[in-house]
């Protein structure tokens, strides 16, 4: 996955571009994953190097962060994400995320479901309260801008990115929800409209360390001018509101120890 993007420009600052390109972001493909190509593309448009990872791999290899993209891994059989969670590579990702190195991991949509099934994130997702698959441009509020994946946003900032799912209703018991709120681990909330009945309008959460983040909407589909939400129905956003996820983690990696 080293080809240049068909559309979109590399960062203008050449030395900065070289620095960011040194950061390697793994993108996992399971049987039934749909958005791995878009996620890898988002990594490249943000200036990083995307690395293909396969669910059956037994080693994680040399990556600085991992994106678990959306789709219907294993056909959503049993429960969304339930079978993917036991793939050989997931064991490595779980260990790396929990290690002292705190590997940054982002789970998008089905990836979020896989992270809850993996117990890297609390709670679970059940069918949307209205029972329908829903696809729309969704306004979110960034509640926590201190996670590995949200550093380039401001707390309270509203962004618009696509949402598309059937099992998107986030649930957890009240004790867990209270703890998430108290610890600032509600990272994104739906604004204006709760599209699936999620408790407390929660769209995304993080683990305690802030290196693992999961959300239902899709930042990787809002990374290019002309191809984001704004060009569809003008409900807000800048077409590229999702790019910050990827620049956040890249800047953290190149600015950090590595």
């Amino acid at each position, binding site marked *: 996955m080293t080809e240049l993007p068909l559309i979109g420009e590399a960062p203008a600052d050449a030395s900065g571009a070289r620095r960011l390109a040194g950061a390697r972001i793994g993108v996992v493909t399971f049987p039934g994953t749909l958005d791995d190509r878009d996620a890898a593309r988002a990594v490249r448009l943000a200036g990083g190097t995307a690395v293909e990872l396969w669910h059956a791999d037994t080693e994680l290899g040399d990556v600085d962060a991992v994106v678990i993209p959306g789709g219907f891994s294993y056909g959503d059989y049993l429960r969304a994400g*339930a079978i993917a969670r036991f793939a050989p590579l997931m064991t490595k990702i779980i260990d790396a995320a929990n290690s002292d190195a705190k590997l940054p991991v982002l789970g998008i949509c089905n990836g979020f479901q896989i992270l809850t*099934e993996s117990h890297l994130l*609390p*709670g*679970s997702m*059940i069918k949307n309260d209205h*029972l329908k698959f829903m696809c729309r441009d969704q306004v979110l509020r960034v509640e926590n801008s201190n996670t590995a994946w949200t550093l380039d946003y401001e707390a309270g900032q509203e962004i618009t990115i696509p949402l598309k799912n059937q099992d998107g209703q986030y*649930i957890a018991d009240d004790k867990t929800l209270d703890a998430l709120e108290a610890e600032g681990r509600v990272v994104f909330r739906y604004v204006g409209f709760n599209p699936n*009945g999620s408790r407390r309008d929660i769209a995304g959460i993080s683990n305690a360390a802030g290196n693992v983040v999961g959300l239902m909407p899709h930042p990787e589909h809002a990374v290019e001018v002309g191809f984001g939400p704004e060009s569809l129905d003008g409900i807000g956003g800048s077409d590229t509101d999702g790019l910050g996820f990827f620049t956040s983690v890249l800047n953290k990696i190149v600015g950090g120890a590595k």
Partner: protein
Amino acid sequence: MPRIVVDVMPKPEILDPQGKAIVGALPRLGFTSFSSVRQGKRFELTVDGEVTEEILAQARDAAETLLSNPVIEDVVNVEVVEA
């Protein structure tokens, strides 16, 4: 061949959207005596040979780790059914 049957139900406090849709459809067909429906899952694990205590324990373990998600579901029954 004996089978181990595992029944999994959504936790009582979890809204079951599928059950809700079913209970809405029942009266349209004239089934008016049912005020609530909850939809669960039944798994049948076939065993080649005798079901020992150890195999049954394995089934219980599988039921808790893979077949159900304890955040949203309860394993309500694990039993041996002779074919």
